[in-house]
Structures are given as structure tokens and as C-alpha cells.
């Protein structure tokens, strides 16, 4: 067996119960190999170095959306981000243990309220998701009807919304979004993508209701189209595309409303 390689990582620590006013960095030396993820690093620290480190995780396979953190300032899923990609940047073969400059800095997701260490408050994010009525709205649907048939939906119809249905609610796009950073009321990329997912679903009839949320100042129009949300999305959802298409839809529905002479969704305008 070869000696395991090691590197240094800085981990943001914060526990208000212990009187911490602000986060501080804890530097730890950790072993790694080609398959070591950022989440593995945190597990190592918790189990071998300091069991009081708090962070969220479960699936360790990039599907549950629990483990979002900032790594060197960029929002990442801890379980799908690998140490190999950071140490490589610093030049292959150099022994990082020799100088203790950290290869990685791990911090809680930006723009969310920190609770403790790497755990952030997710409630505000979930409230935004709920606000867009993310479910099939179909006045004709009858619940629990065993004889009911499935709707027809062709692969092409499915393909229209499928990408937007792949969101794992990890929140990375909110940590990337400068507008959400300035205005936490902004419903944000994932919620808009989710609204779009249902709006594009051939089984749904709820677009009008959802557009009332998206039309507002805190809806699609808050976005200044930076596009960083799509860059950081670990699931290829492309929320920026959803926001953009949402703006087109929103403009359309505003025009229609204008012709009809009724007020649009934003009560403040």
C-alpha cells in the first residue's frame, strides 16, 4: 500500500450556542485518494477529528440535495465534488502536506442564514418552492378513482418539461444568485424552474395561477440574467432558461391582461 496523500482543508465553524459571533475557520489535515469527495472529507473530520462538526448529508450519490456547501467560494454538492480536482490545480506531485496552505475551503451556502457550522436555514427556500403551486392543477381530476386511465403524454411532450423536473432542491442556484443575495423575497431560480416544469406539463391547467406569482416584482422580473445559477446546477436543470422563458410568458400574460383591462398579479404595480 502506498502512503495515503494528504492535504489541508479549512472548514467554517460557527455555533451561536457557544457564543460565536461569527464563523471561524478550522484547519484540518485530511487523507484523500482519487475518489475522495468533499463529503468524505467532512465525514473523516467528524468521525476522526472533531465529532461536533455539523453538516447535512444522506444519499452520498448526488440525488437527495442535502449536502450543498461553498467550496473555494463556489456552490457545490459535497458528495459530487472531488478533492482530486482541487489538488490537481495546484500542480500534480506536489506534497500539499508540506506547506499547510489549504487546498479547499468549505463554507456554508452563501445567501442562506447560517444555523451552525455548515448547516443553513432551508425554510425560506422551501417557502419559495411552495409559493409557485408545484403540483398538477386540474379541475377535472377525480382523486382515487381506480378505473381512471392515465393521460396520454408523448415522449416529445414529456421532453418539454423533463429537464425542469430534475431539480433536487439543493439550493446551489440560490447561493449563486446575486439577486437572491440582495432580495431574499425573490422566488429564485429553482422555484421558477419548478413552476415552469408544471406550466409545460401537458396534464396541467394551472399556468394562470402560477403566473400570478411569477409576474410580480419578486418573480421573474427580479432576475437580471446573470446566469450563474445554471452554471452551478449539479443536475443540468438550467434554471436560467426557465427564468428567461418565464419572462416571455410573463410579458405575454401581462399584455393579455392589459388588453382585458384587468390588473396583473403584482399588487404593488
Amino acid at each position, binding site marked *: 500500500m502506498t502512503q495515503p496523500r494528504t492535504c489541508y482543508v479549512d472548514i467554517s465553524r460557527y455555533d*451561536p*450556542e*457557544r457564543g460565536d459571533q461569527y464563523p471561524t475557520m478550522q484547519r484540518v489535515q485530511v487523507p484523500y485518494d*482519487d*475518489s475522495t469527495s468533499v463529503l468524505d472529507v467532512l465525514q473523516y473530520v*467528524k*468521525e*476522526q477529528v472533531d*465529532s*461536533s462538526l*455539523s*453538516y*447535512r*448529508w*444522506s*444519499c*452520498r*450519490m*448526488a*440525488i*437527495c*440535495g*442535502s449536502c450543498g456547501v461553498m467550496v473555494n467560494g463556489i456552490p457545490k454538492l459535497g458528495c*459530487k465534488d*472531488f478533492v482530486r480536482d482541487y489538488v490537481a490545480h495546484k500542480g500534480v506531485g506536489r506534497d500539499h502536506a508540506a506547506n499547510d496552505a489549504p487546498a479547499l475551503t468549505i463554507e456554508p451556502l452563501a445567501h442562506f442564514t447560517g*444555523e*451552525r457550522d455548515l*448547516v443553513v436555514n*432551508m*425554510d425560506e427556500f*422551501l417557502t419559495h418552492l*411552495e409559493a409557485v403551486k*408545484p*403540483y*398538477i392543477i*386540474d379541475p377535472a*381530476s377525480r*382523486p*382515487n378513482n*381506480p378505473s*381512471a*386511465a*392515465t*393521460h*396520454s*403524454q*408523448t*415522449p416529445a*411532450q*414529456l421532453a418539454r*418539461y*423533463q429537464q425542469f*423536473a*430534475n431539480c*433536487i*432542491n439543493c439550493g446551489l442556484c440560490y447561493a449563486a444568485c446575486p439577486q437572491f443575495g440582495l432580495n431574499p423575497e425573490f422566488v429564485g431560480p429553482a422555484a421558477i424552474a419548478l413552476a415552469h416544469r*408544471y406550466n409545460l*406539463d401537458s*396534464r*396541467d391547467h394551472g399556468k394562470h395561477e402560477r403566473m400570478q406569482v411569477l409576474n410580480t416584482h419578486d418573480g421573474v422580473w427580479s432576475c437580471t440574467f446573470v446566469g450563474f445559477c445554471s452554471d452551478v446546477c449539479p443536475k443540468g436543470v438550467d434554471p436560467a432558461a426557465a427564468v428567461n422563458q418565464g419572462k416571455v410568458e410573463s410579458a405575454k400574460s401581462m399584455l393579455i391582461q392589459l388588453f382585458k383591462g384587468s390588473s396583473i398579479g403584482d399588487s404593488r404595480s
Partner: protein
Amino acid sequence: MQQHEYDVVVVGGGGAGLRAAIAAAQASDGNSRIALLSKVYPMRSHTVAAEGGAAAVTRDDDSLQAHFEDTVAGGDWLAEQGVVDYFVKHAHRELVQMEHWGCPWSRQPNGNVQVRRFGGMKTERTWFAADKTGFHMLHTLYQTALQFDAITRFDEYFVLDIGVAEDGDEREVTGVLALDIKTGALHCIRAGAVIMATGGAGRVFKFNTNGGIVTGDGMAIAYRNGVPLRDMEFVQYHPTGLPGSGILITEASRGEGGVLVNKDGYRYLQDYELGPETPLGKPQNKYMELGPRDKLSQAFWHEQQRGRTGKHGTSDVVYLDLRHLGKAFLEERLPFICELAKAYVNVDPVHEPIPIRPAVHYTMGGILTDAQCETPIQGLFAAGECASVGLHGANRLGSNSLTELLVFGRLAGEQAWQRANARRNTPAKSDDMTAKTQYWQQRISAMQQNPKHAAVSSWPQLKQDLVATMERGCGIYRDEAGLQQSLNDIHELKVAYQRMHVADSSRGYNTDLLQAIELGFSLDVAEATCLAALERRESRGAHQRLETEYQQRNDEQFLKHSLVRWRDEQPATLEWQRVDTTLSAPKVRAYGEQGNAQASTPNRTQGGKV
């Protein structure tokens, strides 16, 4: 301490818990108060990781009888046949209901739902949403549940115990005791009915496909309160986990035509009564790669003994070859598998075979319930992987459990609402909630105050010992000596656990404490698993004994469920329970050509009806 009153408490926000909560809300027409507790946000529950699909008879050339037979034979005749019968009849309508709620099922060109092959299933009947079926089901259920005002969510609440009222021989559930993870405060949530939907216990083993939260909590809570755990010896190894992490590569990869080869590129399954070899690109139901999971995992073990496995890092592996399926097809049908293989073993399945090995995947056994999902404690229900309603017997067929979450989640929700409604106006009985609260308060502070010196262990250390001994003694093949050793190890670990030290003394987000408590639950579940495995001196389904005299199925002595009972500070005890085989008498369980020969003989006993 905060007190709350609800009609129904659902513990668990996975597929089973969410389906149950929706059903209870619907059954009460919205006139109920339902609390949904989960130690993680519901969409983080491990249902999210299910890839392959959910089974229900769908095609014209399929029949309920065939699904029934596949499930009963797949479970090596240890399934409750009345329960299987109910299941196959209600499976399809539940998947249709999911379609109405927006689940993005994969489709045929004509717009109908597409079905795929799955191991041990005679006909294509597995509905799927690409290779993220569980993810899409869970998000669909979560989002659908948002519409029901009757449901109040308690996200990140960790349930420690249930309250029980005793009245002579009658025992009734009265609610749950939970820790709010954010604040560390204890909450007492009373209810007329409680549904356990806490998922499996795969994390009791070292190498597994399960998420970190799958630690058997609900099983242990019911068990400590006197409900037996049934059929715990049956632990499913999935034949295709990634080496190192254990991350699952779905069976659908084989359903779609992937093949398994050993280090010589030989399709070894033909040597284990699963042949003859099927042509590349022409998978055939119940042959070769589409045999059931237990047989495939056992074949790996034999290949390993024969030195025909390869190496990936320190792991012995065989290979899943998907290359002949081509890039376009893989991207359409198995996109997640491609993503996982690239990220976690640095292999692109379009160009290279994926190294794989068996990993613990599914807990067939669980909390004993009757066919209506109720446990021997009145008002306490269980559904999903934590329950043993009797569907899977000695081995679960892939894609039956996602459907199980829906069929029995719904049933549990409806039944629980009925129980709660009947109890609504009855006076509250005196229960043990206060005593339980005191117990847990003391337990927690004891863990934090236990002296921290070298002789006193910490949970990471005990956990490592537990998962290692389970892997050693309670693996794919088992024998008396190994099982006895593991059982002894667990008894020692339980003693050490009492003296364990938890360093973190903060209240909020104290994951140090939570993992310590989870380990306590896991130790109890592990004990039940080992004891039942030790006492079952035969080989059946996923439980295989190495001793010559125990290598066969022995219906005379062991056509029975095991029931393990917990005893405080003493070793657990075991008894046996009759199995319902009224619809289909036990036969030899065979696959490949032998299975085909057998299928031509009538399969049902007289009078059996599906």
C-alpha cells in the same frame, strides 16, 4: 416540554410516509389534523435514490396471477399470500394515481406509459421515470402533499420513542416523543394513531446502497415497545453496487440488456442455474442477468471463491457491460447510471464495463403488522420498508417495493384515520409518555456526561465495529460460528454503548448526539437480524447457510416467519409464526431453463384465486 395534539402522526417523509399522510387527509375529507415528522426534509428521504421502477400488471399479455406467482416464488414461499394478492390487485391503480399527480413516467411513442423488464418478473411490468423513479415519485408525492391543509409538517424532527397506554392485555399507542433537531427541544405529540414509515436498516452493514439516515430507527422504536420484528434474517444484497461507496447501479441496466462478466469476460451466471446464456442485446425475463437478486449475489460469492473476480482498488469486483447498448440509448434510458459511474469510479459506461460488487440493499423483514398494516399495539401502524406486512417473504423482487410504499402507505393512512376517528371522543388514557420523556432526558445527558477517557468509546468507533461484524458474520453466506460470533460482538457493543461518550453538548443541530442515538437503534436491529439468521438453520431466499445440512430449503421445519422480541438488558428471544400459503403451495424455486420447465406445470393449489 412542548405538547401537541393531532389525529394521526406519520413518522417518516419518504414514499410510504407521504402516501400515508395524503391518504389520511383524503379519507377524513380534510377534517383531520395530521402531523408528518421526518428527521430530514421529506425530499431527502432515501426513496429519492430508487432508480429502477415500480411494478404493476399493465400489459394485455400479463396477469395478476403472474405477478402474484412471481412475488410468492421470488420470496421463496415466505410471503403472506393474502397480502400479495391484495398488493397485485391494487398496484396498478396506485401507479395511475401517481400519473394523475404528475409523476413523469417514461412513455411509449403513442403516449402510453412504458414498462421495462425487471429481475424475477415474468413479463415487463415495471413503470419507470428514466432511471430516477424514486426521485420523481418522492418529489411528486411531496409536492402533491403541499396541497393538503390537513397535513402539518415537522421537518427535521427526530423521533425517539412512542407513548403507550396499557389496559390489561390491550396496548394502545398515544403519540410520539420527538427531538426538534434545530433547537434540541423535546416535543410530545399525541395522536389517536401513529404510522411508522421510517425506512430500512441497510446502514447496519458496512457496504450498502443506502443513505446515511437509513439506520432502522422506527424498527427499533416499535421493537423496544414490544412489537416483534419479523423475518429480519432476510437482508437483500443487490448484485451491482459500485466498489468503495456502495452506490447502486440499478437492475434496470440489466433489464435494458446489460450483462455481467467476470475478470475473463465470461458471463458466469450460466454456471449457476440461470442459463443458458442469452444472446447479447436480447435479455430474457428470469434468465441470466434477469434472475433474482439473491441468486446473482450468491453467484458473485462463488466467483470470488474461485478466484475469477477482478480488482478495483481493494475491492473484488465483476463487471457490468453496457457498451453494446450504445451512447444514445444509454443517455435516454440510463442517464443517471452514466453520471454515477463517471463521478464515482471514473468509468464511462459507453466505452468501458463498470466494476461492481454486491452491496446490502434492502431489509425484507421489519415491524410485524397484520394485513391492514396495524401492529399488535392498537393504533400503531407501519408501512414501507420498515414494516413486515408480509409482501416480500425471503427475498424481495426489484420494483415491488416502490409500489408497496403506495399500496400499503395508502392503506395505512386510511386505516390510521379510521382508528383515530373512532378514538376522537374517547377520554385520554394514562400512558407512559412522562416516564419515556424522563428516560430520554437522562439518557441524553448521560451520553454527554459519561467520562471521556480512552477506555470509553465513541460512536464512530462502535459503529465501525458493528458494521464490520455484520459484514463478516451475517453476509451473503452464513454459518453458525460466524453468526454466533457476530451476536456476541453485538452484545459486547451494547454494553460498551452504555458507557459511550458524546462530545458535543450544544442543543441545536447536534448531529453528534443524533448519530449516537441512531447507533443505539442500529444495535438493536442488528441483534434481531443475527439472532434470526442463527436460528434459521436452512437456506431460503436471501438467507443462505454454508453448513451442508442447512444448504437446502427445509419446509418441514422452517416454512415459518421468525419473530424476534426485545428484552431490556437481556438477549432478545425468538419464536416462529405460521405462514399463509393458502393460495399457492410451496414448490421448488427455479429460474433459467429449470424455471421454464417448471412453469409448464400448474402452479396453484385448488381453489386458489387471484
